[in-house]
């Protein structure tokens, strides 16, 4: 039995402790906004906040997340920084296919929560998510817009 706090709700789950958090979110909890892209922490599509830190959930055993608050894209519009990130994403029209963008939004939320006015180096260090549509410039623009509003 694992207790997992996701988006403010505590769930008691019967699941192997080494199951990646990603698959518990997607399959046990039905939170499919968090995406599977590579399974090896390369692409960042699975990024969620674990205790406020941007975390690649495909490579984090669920037992390691137990006892820490997990925030997923489903709760982003209730997050004090995340809601501004979403508005900026919409203003910059950042997503194309959209598949990587849950992870991009979560990574940007963690970045802006820690560094409200990030410089290019901050963005480079925090935003390592792969986007095959190549929305990197639009995402940077969205982060700049969000930074102005924070």
């Amino acid at each position: 039995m694992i207790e997992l706090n996701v988006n403010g709700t505590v769930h008691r789950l019967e699941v192997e402790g080494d199951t990646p958090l990603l698959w518990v979110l997607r399959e046990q909890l039905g939170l499919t906004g968090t995406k599977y892209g590579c399974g090896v922490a390369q692409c960042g599509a699975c990024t969620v906040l674990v205790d406020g830190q941007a975390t690649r959930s495909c490579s984090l055993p669920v037992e390691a997340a137990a006892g820490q608050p997990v925030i997923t894209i489903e709760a982003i519009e209730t997050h004090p920084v995340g809601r501004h990130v979403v508005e900026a994403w919409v203003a910059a029209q950042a997503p194309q296919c959209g598949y990587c963008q849950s992870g991009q939004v979560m990574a940007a939320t963690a970045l802006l929560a820690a560094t409200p006015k990030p410089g290019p180096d901050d963005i480079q260090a925090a935003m390592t998510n792969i986007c095959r549509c190549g929305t990197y410039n639009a995402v940077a623009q969205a982060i700049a817009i969000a930074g102005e509003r924070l």
Partner: protein
Amino acid sequence: MGALLAAALSGAMPPGRPVNMSRRGMFAAAGAGLFLGLAIPGRAPRAQGSPPGAALRHAGKVAAYLRIAPDGKVHLQNPFAEGGQGIDSAVAQIIAEELDAPPADFVVTCAPAGEDYRVMQGGNARFTGGSFSVRSSFAHFRTLGATARAMLIEAAAQRLAVPAAALATEPGRVVHAESGRALPYGELAMAAAALTPPDNPPLRDPATFRLIGRPLPRLDVRAKSTGKVTYAIDVKVDGMLLAAVLHAPRAGAQPAAVTNEAALRAMPGVHSVHRLPGAVAVVADSWWRAKTAVGQAQVAWQALQGPVMGEDFTGEAMLGRLKAAAGSHGGTAEEAGDVQVALAGAARVIEAEYDAPYLAHAQMEPPSATARFDADGSLDVWVPNQAPDFFQASAARVAGIEPAKVRIHSPPLGGFFGRHFAYGAANVHPQAILLAKAVSRPVKVIWSREEEFARDAYRPMAFATFRAGLDAAGEIVAFQAAGHGEGPITRHFGTARLGNPPIDGSIMEGLTGKPYRFAAKRVEFVPVPHPAGVNLGFWRSVGHSMNDFFFESFLDEIAAAAGKDPFALRMALLAQSDRHRTLLNAVADLSGGWRRGPYDAPDGTRRARGVAMASPFGSEVATIAEVSVSEGEVMVHDLWIAIDPGQVVNPRTIEEQVQSAAAIGLSSALFEEIRFERGEVATRNFDTYRVLRRDRMPRVHVRVVESGAPMGGVGEPGTPGVPPAVANAVFALTGQRLRSMPFGRTRLSGA
């Protein structure tokens, strides 16, 4: 929902339910081959405008496409698949112009399979690819929107008992100016749906367009920014089981036995273990449990039928085969004058060879498919796809049922770039159908990223040779090129479809179709097959993705040999084309004036620029790249891209697509390569298959030039100019000529 449907303009069409089964039956009778032949992107016209009187077979079928709900929402069934290119929004924008409805009121889903949605090629084909969507359906959707508007006006005329001519529309409603009365479309939809669609409804004068040509926002951006889009991988069906697969290490081998099946079945959540064509599968109550189990499968792989990838197969070996064919006589794709005579008389002949590797699509969403057999013997399949009719036929064959009994659901695509056509063993849905049949429950199969990279249909490796003859003054008197290999058209449509002489456009476009005028020219296609175990696919910009690199780089080699500036040489070779010269001037202007360099940038780096052109998918593109070299690698700082798609629907989407296309073009130029070792794919995740990330993304400056030429595509054309512009800039900076992609394999000497 019931009331909404009853009040709908197309009340007869709940989502996902076939509109007309007999029509699907007719498609089946016509046979997949006919559809294949019609749907080959490479054989279609280069540009499709919207001439008056064009075949608009389905433009009056308002009910098949539009359903206006009482709340005014316009529910649109789009024949095209949305995968980031903005086609849902573009189609809504076109219809909204003629329907006179607010674009933001549109709710768009991908239409089911069926004849009504074959809007391409005279109303006979449907696929999302070849950058064809808007240009092939622009006239259709304008007429459809105008037809629906006329029906709403007629319904209002009857309701208000006034002549239709006394009525006008404002966005979302019909108005009677004389009495000041107005009726929202949502209140008229049911009555309008009962009317016969009129022929030849009046279209707006393009000079009065309020929406077409404007940078409207896309409709799905908020949903995509909040994780609310349901992709195929997210589909959930009651009672479904999840399956993970393990393909044979070397394609072509079959699973003779799973020797530890009992142990796998004893693992948590495992339902069953299955042998499939070329793969084994574990079905479980969760995908993670299925994947964990299949990862431990011990399989006896055997060559049971057909060829198996040779243990000696590598990319280098394949390139050797292609090079060995150099000099063979090929089919003539283009010819002018007598190139042999011209070469013999040339003062100087220069030659070069170019190559490009296999590429993966590497779309971010790993492929999946969900199959559910229903009690009546019909089948539902949820599958990422670019051609529902095609997948319907394929699913029916696998299931052994009539196509009319297959419902294809086409969720938004988490990227595609050509990945989701019917590619045989590269498709997931046959596995899902076989497993659903075997376990008598709905099954969703998801391929892990590793399985996807190992079984994608790759952009083919290709190889080209060039020869140019110069006279004593450095003028080009002869130009000869040959493309070698096999394209996805040959692989999936057969040599019988290549025409006479047989030319595979998917391996030749970009060597052919160039706008430059040469007095003597010959371009040949030399067929060289790839192994059966290497699947081949259409990859963003298809043949252009490699050939424009080859051609435009060699053109720079000619300029260097002739002592000419590469920009000026292109201008001279385009003396006959105002359109191309205008475009070259536009990109030069965008970049602050043509300036080849090398020169010192303010940050202390030494930089240079390269230029390239491409004529893909009915559009024209000119690209300039600025580069420096750092630690032996090329750094691209800026890309300036001018695109002339002839006519513009949404300039913002065009700019976004050019940004995206440029990124994937640069990614392929710098990094990408599927590698084989011992007959197996060795690059099976993003750690070994490197793609462009933020750290190497340049600024991209886009200018859209609307020449008024027939409408071209916009999704792919931004890609092919980037690799040659970068390579030509590297040459200007370092004197090193890059003739092989990816450039990352070549250590640059520095400036």
